């Protein structure tokens, strides 16, 4: 229909003033959205486990991927509002374009969003595959966790008959938690380590973590479990391997 070649059309398109304005706005909004990536990681605090490092990396990557998409949408609608608004309350005097769509734009949009989706998926599967190898890790220290309205009990079954209500972990050693509940559902969440699994009555669920920072971190119940759900929190003390052993021995356990 149109005698003009595609390249000419694109060239002319990019020369329009409003297209350039939208492009500038696009860059502006992309940067604004992108700024949320470091902010997120900062709010989540220093990663206290290998798992939390992955979580923060993922959120950063996803934010950077989302930024241009969100930025484009914000840019187009903001520019349209500022430049093509029909002023006042009365009905617009002029009509907009009568274009009912643009095939190449639609195809490009769907292709790009599908591609982004594939990237998300591959990234997620790769992370989970790493988790799978960890599953076979026989060296992991097993600790039993029992939720009980409204306290957590920890049994260090590899170190004899030791039970505590605050968790002690040696740094840089993989741990495998066997989690269960004696009453309703709870959720065992070590906040700064970015890991969580529900504690269900009559079932044992698994959760793995490798703490990487020495210090005290928070354990909070993340599943509404009745009256005192908000009081169901405790601490995890990540200590050196020597200190851990000393603590076990002091509490009547063995190596």
């Amino acid at each position, binding site marked *: 229909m*149109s005698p003009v070649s595609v390249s*000419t059309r694109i060239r*002319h398109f990019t020369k329009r003033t409003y297209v350039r304005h939208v492009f500038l706005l696009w860059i502006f909004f992309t940067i604004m959205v992108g700024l949320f990536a470091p902010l997120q990681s900062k709010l*989540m*605090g220093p990663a206290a486990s290998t798992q*939390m490092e992955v*979580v923060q990396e*993922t959120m950063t990557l*996803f934010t950077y991927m*989302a930024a241009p998409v969100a930025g484009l*949408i914000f840019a*187009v*609608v903001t520019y*349209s509002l500022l430049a*093509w*608004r*029909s002023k006042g309350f009365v*009905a*617009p005097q*002029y*009509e*907009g*374009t*009568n*274009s*009912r*769509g*643009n095939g190449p*734009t*639609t195809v490009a*949009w*769907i292709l790009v*969003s599908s591609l982004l*989706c594939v990237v*998300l*998926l591959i990234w*997620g*599967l790769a992370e*989970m595959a790493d*988790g799978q190898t960890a599953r076979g890790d026989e060296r992991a220290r097993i600790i039993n966790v029992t939720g009980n309205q409204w306290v957590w009990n920890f049994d260090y079954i590899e170190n004899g008959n030791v039970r505590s209500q605050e968790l002690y972990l040696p740094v840089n050693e993989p741990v495998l938690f066997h989690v269960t509940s004696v009453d*309703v*559902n709870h959720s065992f*969440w070590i906040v*700064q380590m970015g890991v*969580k*699994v*529900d504690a269900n*009555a*009559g*079932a044992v669920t*698994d959760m793995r973590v490798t703490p990487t920072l020495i210090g005290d971190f928070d354990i*909070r119940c*993340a599943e*509404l479990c*009745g*009256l*005192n*759900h*908000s009081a169901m*929190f405790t601490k995890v003390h990540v200590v050196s391997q020597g200190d851990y052993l000393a603590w076990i021995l002091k509490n009547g356990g063995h190596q």
Partner: protein
Amino acid sequence: MSHTAEVTTAKKRKGLMRKLNVWTGIVFGVVVAVAAHYLAKRYIPMGADETGTVLMDRVVITTMFGWTIGFMAGVGAFVGPYRWMMNRDLDHDDQMWLAGKDAGMARYFRFTTDHKVVGIQYLVITMVLFAVGGTMAMMIRTQLMRADSTFLNNTWYNTLVGMHGIIMIIATIIMVSGPFGNFVLPIMIGARDMAFPRLNALSFWLIFAAVPVLLSAPFLGGISTGWTAYAPLSTQAPAGMDAYIVTIIIFAVSSAVAGANITTTAVTMRARGMTWNRTPIFVFGTVASVGVAIPAFPMFMASQIFSGLDRTQGAAFYDAANGGSGWLYANLFWLMGHPEVYVILLPALAALLELTPVFSRSPLFSFNSAVGGIAGITGLSMLVWAHHMYASGWAPDLNGPFMLTTELISIPTGMLFLVFIGTIWRGRVWGRLPMLAVYAMLFNFLIGGLTGIYMSDVPVDYALHGSMYITAHFHYTLMGGALTGMIGATAYWFPKMTGRMLNEKIGIPAFVIMQVGFNVTFMGMFLVGLQGQQRRVAHYDKLFENGNFISTMGAYTIGFGALMLLYTVITSWRRGEVASDNPWGAKTLEWMVPTPVPLENFEVPPVVTSDPYGFGGPDAYDLEYEEDRRPSDDLETERV
């Protein structure tokens, strides 16, 4: 029996039917409830090893069903089937009476079948539910203003969290397909009423009956479970839980009835010439929404029937010690719970898609993408439920597949975004309240959608699940996206439904205040969520105090804006500027009929020859290309 005698009896019977209304419904409902209560107390046996609480649950549930059945009988819901069984089907006079012919205000207070009356009834009950649920939100936020506040005790706090949740879920499910799906949709497709007018009235009055049942929960010991009502916590909960169970069962029946009705209407009653690609996009969105609800809500109903049997009969569906599983509940619940998100979103987005061309004065960009996007979301919405259960420990090997389906949803959702921005692009944006709602929705829903993609990723979800981050995320989709869409739809169709213009001089500031408050509230919630605050806690660590304070201030701002908006709606409805038949210059059929809309909508059935998006003129720049010249500056100024 002589001929005259027959006529007399018929007259007398008709007389009874014509005396029923909401008040007789309430009286009869209370009478039956009281009777059911005493009969249940007297005759329901209690096993030897059962405690008084089990008996109480049985009595409470029986009483609530007594109320529901009594109310429905008293309001006249069974008149049709009764007359049919008596072999005296409703005659034309009866039908007209049921449709509310010449009945004035009274028709809003009885079992009226006119779809326009039902639409208004839905609009009012939606606003009432929002007011109740919103007040609860204010109380929750007041409690959370400080880390160790004592405004509410734990029982009240948990109850309000659960009630706020379920009331808002019910309100948002009905908020678009109820008022506009009933009032606007039939006119939009050129029909004279819904396919099943009596079912239409039935679906509304069932919801009406469910409201007092749900509101009785705080007086029966409350709901300790949140709106998810997870087992086995629900088995342990006080009799308030029974109110939840009965409400959901009634609501599931109501939504099934409404869904069948709206679907049938849209499929079979479109005007001559209204092929599928001439059908307005709002019809697609609403049908998709109720279409998703039809398989989803029976799951919810089953989950609550099992819950009720566990509580009252020791059925042990969810009791691990006796061979049941809490994961069964979680699965049934989320088989409803995720599709339900789209039950809420789709009609709201479709309403905004419908009005965007009108307020951009240009056609819907890529109608096929809009339909494809809606269809894609509809299909995928059934396949993603277990992303709510990544961290539950149930079938960890399924996390990968569910991550895939969840992430795929971003493609059809993205198509809808393309349609919005494509329609606005090179359009002529008319900054009235409906269009502001489109803008607000695009902003909020984009944030809600993108944070949703973060949580579709399994490891990220392990970190964020059960935290305030989730609460912020779904409020961005359901409130920032869907409720904003509903406000836009209300502003758009207000002139047709009430005959008056919505006063935007107050309406727009009110809307802007609400939007600012909304973003402050839930940005604060994202903040404390990332810091590690768990959901549904009455007290929290001092660390989270700043973020929570911000959220509470934002919530009060929303409350203020909402009251202003409510004031605007009420005053405009009562004495606003009288609206013309088509104040927006729209092209869908509902704007072609007079306001107020006559009883049977169309005097002559309309014939449709094109889609309703024939806006706009040739784009000045495109004209330039025909001649292959450079775009000149004066061309742009000429168009402005």
